[in-house]
């Protein structure tokens, strides 16, 4: 049985449905992420798990027990808030000891518990400081330590890294992964940052308009998005309009109007003439002035439309023969070279037939 089970949960605020019939389950020890744009319902779902909101329909079960009658202070679930919500009138040690005191842990045991968790987040020498005397990253660690010290069954994290700068964010991501491995507590993580979600999670639920658009492992979500929304939201993705041209066999053929036929992986239930979208990640496209390609590759001609130099890579926007723009990228492995092509250069593109992923409309 799953540790946390969300069964057909609906939450409405007036006319607005924030969470619409969501069902999912989280296993013990999992790093689970709710990912989506703002207003997709991920934070509402998190607040329902914490107990601050009550679902209008459906059930939330923790260890098989219905949580609907359990107030937030009685749930074995703790939250790391986006703003950290550290108590400004308490020192780091007092902040972290707070949940222990509330749980009635004997006074004599508190110092040991405190030392343990301070060591976990490397804040031993900051125990006597007040939150306003700490840096953003240190506050973040205090918030995590405070939420973890009582060993909750589930730790909820509400965009915990969004207030940090990019470099610190990456450091904290690594720390979070290690911490989660070390303590073995189930993490439910909310973010709108797809990179963060891919880097941290065991599984991701991509949410859109109150519904789960796709629930899968990061690599599956990235490589095989189930719908246009997920393809578009996660990473950069080319979306090419196409029609099914040939089915049956190990490969399916689709026609990109004005460009030509293109082989791809077969899609279940596809019928000739059905329209859809071919999704293609920029880094899976080969680009050169002229290419030799094998039978497993799809091959087209194009013209460079725009270049974006990013340092490690350069993005080339290539115009296909039908006017569609395709994003591709090449690593700048040759030292000092900013780009291989200039605008309006004629180029050839190729990708493996299984690099693209066809979505039926």
């Amino acid at each position, binding site marked *: 049985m799953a540790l946390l089970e969300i069964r057909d949960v609906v939450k409405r605020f007036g006319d607005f449905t924030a969470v619409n019939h969501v069902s999912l389950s989280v296993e013990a020890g999992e790093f689970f992420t709710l990912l989506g744009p703002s207003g997709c319902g991920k934070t509402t779902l998190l607040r329902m798990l*914490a*107990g*601050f909101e009550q679902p209008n329909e459906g059930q939330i079960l923790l260890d098989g027990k219905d949580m609907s009658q359990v*107030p*937030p*202070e*009685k749930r074995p*679930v*703790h*939250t790391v*808030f986006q*703003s950290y*919500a*550290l*108590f*400004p*009138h*308490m*020192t780091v040690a*007092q902040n972290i000891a*707070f*949940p222990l005191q*509330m*749980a009635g842990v004997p006074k004599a045991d508190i110092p040991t518990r405190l030392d343990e968790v301070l060591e976990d987040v490397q804040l031993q020498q900051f125990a006597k400081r007040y939150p306003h005397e700490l840096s953003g990253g240190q506050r973040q660690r205090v918030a995590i330590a*405070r*939420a973890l010290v*009582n060993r909750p069954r589930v730790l909820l994290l509400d965009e915990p890294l969004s207030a940090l700068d990019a470099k610190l964010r990456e450091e904290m991501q690594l720390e979070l992964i290690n911490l989660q491995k070390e303590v073995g507590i189930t993490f439910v993580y909310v973010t709108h940052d797809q990179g963060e979600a891919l880097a941290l999670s065991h599984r991701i639920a991509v949410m859109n308009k109150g519904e789960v658009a796709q629930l899968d492992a990061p690599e599956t979500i990235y490589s095989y998005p189930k719908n246009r929304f997920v393809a578009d939201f996660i990473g950069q993705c080319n979306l090419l309009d196409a029609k099914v041209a040939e089915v049956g066999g190990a490969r399916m053929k689709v026609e990109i109007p004005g460009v030509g036929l293109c082989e791809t992986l077969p899609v279940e239930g596809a019928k000739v003439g059905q329209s859809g979208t071919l999704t293609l990640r920029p880094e899976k496209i080969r680009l050169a002035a002229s290419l030799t390609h094998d039978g497993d590759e799809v091959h087209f001609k194009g013209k460079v439309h725009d270049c974006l130099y990013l340092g490690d890579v350069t993005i080339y926007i290539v115009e296909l023969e039908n006017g569609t723009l395709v994003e591709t990228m090449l690593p700048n492995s040759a030292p000092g070279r900013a780009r291989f092509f200039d605008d309006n250069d004629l180029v050839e593109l190729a990708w493996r037939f299984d690099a693209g992923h066809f979505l039926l409309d």
Partner: protein
Amino acid sequence: MQNRIQRAAKWLISGPPLLYLLIFFAAPSLIMGFAAFRFGGDYGGLMPLTQTDDAGKTTLLINLHNWHDFLTLESFGRFFEDSIYAGLFLKSFWYAGLTTIICIVMAYPLAWLIARSPKKTRDLLVLLVILPFWSNFLIRVYAWMIILGPQSYFSKVLNSVLAVFGVEPVSMLFSQFAVIVGLVYVHLPFMVLPLYANLEKHDMALLDAAQDLGANAWQRFWKVTWPLSLPGIWAGTALVFIPALGMFAIPDLLGGTNSIMVGNLIKQQFLDSRDWPFGSVLSIMLTLAVLLLAAFAAWAGSRGKEKQ
């Protein structure tokens, strides 16, 4: 150059109010402090230090050799000789303290309610709190004389209820009770406003966090809201306790003979007995007592912080 202009501007802006305070606050305080060491005049007031002869020439009578004929500790002696004055001080502190505590208890829920209201309602509620200031202070206290007086509906209803239980009718006016009611009524807004200003700034996420970490409603209040509202409580206490301590109009109008405060005594010395030296002594002792109390509070506060 820039610096000089900035400095000049600073003095130009802060100079006038500073001068005003020097002339009308610091100087009178010093004059009063000096008056406490002088003898009373034959017909009240102070014994003169100067003499004007018929020709209109003024001479200073006091000099380095005869100063003990003009300066004395007699008035201070009077203050310490009779315990009635210390008793009156204690009673005044008790009235002001009780007023402050009642104001805190009454203002807290009100300030909380205002701070948690939607923005529009909030402004309206703040306006309602300061609305009493639009009418004259004495008129408002006179209104309490009517409300607490024996002819008011309030008294009649109360006494008829008491009669059911066989209790003798009570007279509320001219009593300690009436004084406290008046003091609380007049000072309540001065507790509500600083408390509101404090509570309004509280981050609601802190209460969510406390609840999430296992605190029930009672613990959330005492562990989070209360300690964070202490600056507001202290500001309100200063604004209520000190004026209440020196109040004389309310005990005059609402109190009986038994419920006068130190303010009444000081007023009596200056206006009725015309014993200015003793009035000055009482004023100085009151100021000292308040300063001592404030120093103690500051010391206790800093000690409490260290202990945490």
